């Protein structure tokens, strides 16, 4: 090809210089990205490759469905709980198990805690350094930083000039000793960084505060799940009993534990409201002109919805996190989404390293096939073991291409917020309007990398408020005499039908997550996970539609091809999650990413 039109409206041109960004680490090398830039350094073709086979589906075959959650939560190093929750929901759906109200409240609080936790950690510890330049922070005037802090967040107590001076001195010591610590090897002289030194210093300071604060949130999972990391889950409810008068941890959840959760929820709300969201607004104010990265967001977005208000009701009306699909940017129409309908969600593999009997057709996950087929196209440069340039006209990724009614979709916080906004959800609309008004931006500004980053922060705020709602709801329910947390009526496999199937879904921090299960003779016959990054990181499909990552990079101007901070900025805004599987300590450290310009 030279220039090619995709059905979903993009013009791909692979004639320019190829830039390859590949985190080729042996340790967690799961994603690679190649783009072509034209003579003005504008991205004209983008190719996203998942470089590792997850294969979780196959190791679950033949196992007890009640155990599946324990395996699925080991898929990932961050979002363990959301996989476990999705798994128990799938099994409960298959076996028609109703869970108690308290179990629903506890699960929601754990899921919301994960949302807030993940968004916070993502922003400060993965994404912030795409916008914030810690080296530039050395030039800041601590007094002016203090004034800036008090202006952007008057209620945050840590704002004295002395405080910022101390942090700046710590930072200076890193730099003067020739080491930048966590900030080494950034592109700190790149003109893509736009913040004044004071804003950089404020943000770096909050990087440290966030790292310190985030530990509180995980205590919520430890209290409800018995331990953390890897809390316990239970098909039929939650594994913790409620015994308000109990003492210590032996008698289950007591008032001491519940008061602790309640206090943490208040701290999360304070941190998000007084640090995270003000930082977002302050940083976004300087990057208003950087409008790249929208990709599919202005066209096709999808959410399964989550956070059922009443237990066991997974209808759209009962889900507090909105469900729906928007096609071709028509915000006036939000389509219903049905995870059971074989015509809606289908996975395609013409460009994925999998084999189907007929690859012109997609398969619904209940009928999904996971059979590896690694082969490279004729135009590949390099070898199977050292791919220098991938051939995207052939199979080129370990990620399948899921489609909703044939459309490539973006999932994640921005999708959820666009759908909530289109549906007129009161809280979401108010949050979005507040941000747009503060920054003096039109609604179309949402469809961008920054919009994605902002939606994540707003959702952390929303999640913290909803944790309070479910905490209060559960306390009222317990006081009314209901302390039930699990329904074990269908625990015995002898009560199960010979064959059944189910689907469980959540909205994980990074987007729509579904597990589809088939149970035969009390064992797992087929298990398919479609994870958020399967949607966003999807390769091309049969028709040539590009996926969300690919679309988001298109037409972005890169200041320096050899320092593609813009590519990282946009990919990071999705909080990409590919199988996090292994880490082996090595003597010489790890190579995290290579950038090659060819």
């Amino acid at each position, binding site marked *: 090809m030279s220039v090619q039109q995709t059905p979903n409206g993009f013009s791909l041109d692979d004639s320019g210089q190829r830039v390859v960004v590949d985190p080729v680490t*042996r340790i967690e090398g799961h994603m690679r990205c190649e783009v072509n830039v034209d003579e003005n350094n504008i991205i004209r073709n983008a190719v996203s490759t998942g470089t590792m086979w997850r294969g979780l589906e*196959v190791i679950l075959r033949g196992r007890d469905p009640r155990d599946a959650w324990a395996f699925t939560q080991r898929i990932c190093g961050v979002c363990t709980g959301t996989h476990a929750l999705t798994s128990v929901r799938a099994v409960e759906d298959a076996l028609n198990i109703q869970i108690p109200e308290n179990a629903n409240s506890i699960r929601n609080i754990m899921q919301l805690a994960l949302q807030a936790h993940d968004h916070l950690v993502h922003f400060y510890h993965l994404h912030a350094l795409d916008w914030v330049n810690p080296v530039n922070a050395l030039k800041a005037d601590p007094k002016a930083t203090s004034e800036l802090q008090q202006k952007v967040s008057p209620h945050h107590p840590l704002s004295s000039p002395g405080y910022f001076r101390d942090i700046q001195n710590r930072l200076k010591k890193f730099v003067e000793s020739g080491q930048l610590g966590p900030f080494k090897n950034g592109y700190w002289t790149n003109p893509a960084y736009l913040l004044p030194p004071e804003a950089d210093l404020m943000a770096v300071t909050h990087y440290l505060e966030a790292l310190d604060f985030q530990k509180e949130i995980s205590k919520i999972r430890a209290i409800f799940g018995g331990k953390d990391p890897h809390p316990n889950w239970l098909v039929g409810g939650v594994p913790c009993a409620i015994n308000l008068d109990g003492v210590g941890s032996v008698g289950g959840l007591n008032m001491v534990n519940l008061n602790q959760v309640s206090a943490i929820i208040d701290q999360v709300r304070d941190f998000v409201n007084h640090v995270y969201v003000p930082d977002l607004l302050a940083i976004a104010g300087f990057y208003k002109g950087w409008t790249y990265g929208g990709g599919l967001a202005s066209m096709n977005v999808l959410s399964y919805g989550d956070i059922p208000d009443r237990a066991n009701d997974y209808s759209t009306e009962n889900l507090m996190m909105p469900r729906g699909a928007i096609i071709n940017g028509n915000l006036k129409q939000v389509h219903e989404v049905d995870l059971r309908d074989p015509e809606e969600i289908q996975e395609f593999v013409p460009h994925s390293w999998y084999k189907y009997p007929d690859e012109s057709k997609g398969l619904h996950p209940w009928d999904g096939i996971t059979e590896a087929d690694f082969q490279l196209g004729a135009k590949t440069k390099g070898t199977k073991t050292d791919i220098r340039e991938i051939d995207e006209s052939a199979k080129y990724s370990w990620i399948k291409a899921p489609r909703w009614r044939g459309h490539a979709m973006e999932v994640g916080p921005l999708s959820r917020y666009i759908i909530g906004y289109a549906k007129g959800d009161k809280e979401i609309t108010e949050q979005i309007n507040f941000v747009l008004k503060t920054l003096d931006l039109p609604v179309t500004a949402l469809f961008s990398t920054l919009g994605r980053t902002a939606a994540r922060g707003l959702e952390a705020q929303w999640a913290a408020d909803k944790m309070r709602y479910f905490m209060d709801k559960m306390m009222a329910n317990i006081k009314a005499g209901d302390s039930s947390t699990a329904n074990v009526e269908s625990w015995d496999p002898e009560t199960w039908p010979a064959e059944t199937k189910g689907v469980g879904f959540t909205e994980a921090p990074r987007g729509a997550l579904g597990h589809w299960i088939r149970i035969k003779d009390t064992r797992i016959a087929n298990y398919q996970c479609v994870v958020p990054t399967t949607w966003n990181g999807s390769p091309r499909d049969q028709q040539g539609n590009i996926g969300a990552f690919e679309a988001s990079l298109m037409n972005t101007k890169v200041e320096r091809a050899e320092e593609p901070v813009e590519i990282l900025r946009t990919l990071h805004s999705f909080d990409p999650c590919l199988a996090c599987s292994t880490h082996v300590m090595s003597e010489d450290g790890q190579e995290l990413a290579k950038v090659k310009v060819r």
Partner: protein
Amino acid sequence: MSSTRPSVNDVNRPQPNVLILGIGNLLWADEGFGVRAVETLQQWYRYPDHVRVMDGGTQGVYLVQEVREADILIVFDAIDYGLSPGTLKLIEGEAVPKYLGVKKISLHQTGFQEVLALAEMMGDYPEKLLLIGVQPVEIEDFGGSLHPKVKTKIGPAIEQAIAFLSEQGVVMSRREKPMTSDILSSAISDMTRYEHERPPPEQACRLGDERVLLSGDYQVGHRPVSLEGSAMSVGLDQHLNKYRSQSGS
């Protein structure tokens, strides 16, 4: 955010916080060594309240808090030191690598080295640190358990930990009979059950990504990586000690 703490050797100080941490992925054969070691230790030993034994699994940045709170940290993990497969190796104190980088694609690339580096940056690095590692025999056996050669290293690895703690005045006592593993998650946390219920290879492919398997980049073996140029790793230790003593509050 840094703190001055009494030395571990100070007789008047309160009991040190001890964290015994196993990290790795149970689903990837010998990658599960660290987690299996702490499970075994948990089942066979009694320990005082100031000792915590934790399955850190594949968690990254969320473990920073745990490391910061520890005065004495023992980590069990699979290591790649280019040793002959199945070799047990102890790495102590400053010799434990801690590197960190920013050009990550995914948050999940936070390896344990980065956890250590972040803890150090926050000024709360453990005073005593021991990494008990084993060079894996087999990693690319998805859904598999520990290789027999690695499994036999669990006992000696635990003995090393007990001896190290004993030097620090922390007493662990062996039980007559082991406690049973957590019933709720026993499909995975009970190694015998995990192995027994594994689907046969014709039903469930056990190999990972062929590209990963064949590539020299992915081979478990000694592969020096330059810390200059495009590699994004850095050690933080020496200068931070100086820094800590100056800013202790």
